[in-house]
């Protein structure tokens, strides 16, 4: 049997009330594995922010979480419009979310900055009209 555990989740588009399901399930699994609370907190916040982004901007997507004895790797892949200016998107408070989304309390421009804050590594691959893949790593 392999020394890592792979978990896959699909993020459904256009439903804010369901965003957070993947992070909840990852959290539950990590708790069952007895991971340190601080690690669980960081991972679930990072995934939750990513899920919200996928719902707001990208019509959903796929999340793959790989747990090994060294780190937790999170790959969030979507086939959305891509991020036009990654540098700007990384700035706290910058958001391209629609007014309707902001009215719901989302789109505060803290998504990517928080994902960076709570992980040890974050990289973004994005292409216009093809999609975005955000890769994050939390070291154990």
């Amino acid at each position: 049997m392999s020394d890592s555990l792979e978990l896959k989740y699909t993020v459904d588009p256009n439903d804010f009330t369901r965003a957070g399901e993947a992070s909840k399930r990852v959290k539950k699994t990590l708790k069952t594995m007895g991971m340190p609370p601080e690690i669980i907190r960081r991972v679930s916040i990072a995934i939750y922010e990513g899920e919200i982004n996928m719902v707001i901007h990208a019509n959903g997507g796929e999340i793959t979480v790989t747990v090994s004895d060294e780190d937790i790797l999170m790959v969030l892949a979507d086939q959305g419009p891509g991020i036009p200016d990654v540098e700007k998107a990384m700035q706290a408070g910058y958001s391209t979310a629609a007014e309707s989304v902001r009215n719901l309390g989302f789109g505060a421009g803290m998504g990517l900055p928080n994902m960076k804050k709570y992980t040890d590594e974050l990289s973004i691959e994005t292409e216009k009209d093809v999609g975005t893949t955000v890769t994050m790593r939390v070291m154990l």
Partner: protein
Amino acid sequence: MSDMYEHAVQLNRDKCVGCTNCIKRCPTGAIRVREGKARINHDLCVDCGECVRICEHHAKVPVYDPIERMDEFVYKVALPAPSLYGQFNNLDDSNILLTALHKMGFDSVFEVGSAAELVSAMSRKYLDDHPEQFPLISTACPSIVKLIRIRFPSLIDHLLPIQPPVEIAAEMARRKAVKETGLSPEQIGIFFISPCPAKVSACRSPIGVKKTEVDATLAIKDVYVRLLSVMDDAAEDPMDLAVAGRIGVGWGISGGEAAGLINDRYLAADGIENCIKVLNDLEDQKFSHLQFVELDACAGGCVGGVLTVENPYIAKAKMSVLKKYLPVAGMHTDIPDFGRWTEEVEFEPVFTLGSNFKEKIQKMAQVEELTKKFPGIDCGSCGAPSCRALAEDIARGEAKETDCIHILWKNLHTIMGMMTEMDKMAFAPGIAGREEEGSK
């Protein structure tokens, strides 16, 4: 299985029919049906009483002390919980209720609500002094404290380290009784009249402190019956006993404790599932400006406890009538020099699967694999609340795949298919076996 603390819900095996109602309802997944009977894993049970509520066969029995325990003591003090005040019709003066407690045999009454007002004062001070612990989480509901202890380790540091009102009331009541009667402390019986079994087990094995001052915990429903017969009598000439004001009595209702803090940066949730949602969100730091969180495992607050008589929402309405005539607060003594937690509360990792990392990875992978294999309809026929729970039980070595009737049925189907095939082969000409024997 080790017992972390004494538990307040037991199973009556004769009444249990092995249905799936309780396993489905348990918020911590602590119950399994094995060999046709429910089995409570006491490491996981938080004493919330949900299984007591749902079991229509009355096989889940809340544990509390019989009223007869009053005979063991020379001097008996009643500690009525605020929720008791909401059980009676047209009660507009708490003195009537407190007088009735005297008439049913208690020598003295100490309102838990009056101690609650001191806890409110202590909490206000603690909040002022410890903003670094915001949001502080109420520790008055023992089920919530137990839940956090086993499932939300990152929130343990937010627990308000103050004893619940009943403990402070018990300590004060005993001191007062010793002073007034000259009896020794052992001759004095402190009787808590409780709305729920969680408080029963919390009194028997408290969290955050070494020992309890409560000698016995009676159920509101038992005391209620006795009180009813003396209420009219008490109403004719009530003694002047009431101390607790609106703040203290309000503790019996969800939001009451928070109201006593006179601080609007709070959240109050009731009902165990709602509380779990709030705790999950707190863990993810979804609230940034809260200073206090009140969580009550029972819907409606303590008035919703399983040892009460009245519908919690009606009890709440009745208490609003009573509260109208009460002063804001009645307990104006100094904050006592006791009542803080003295013992460290530690995380109890009861859900953990596997001991070392490699084993955890393997077991978790097994759980994922099995979960995919099961039908995902969470029928409960295996005795576990969900397919995933069965998968975890198997990974722990406590169940087997064929406990799933769908897997069992599939296996049987395969075996029957094989037997049919074998039968065909056995009768086919030229094959050794029955054919040869038959030809002799």
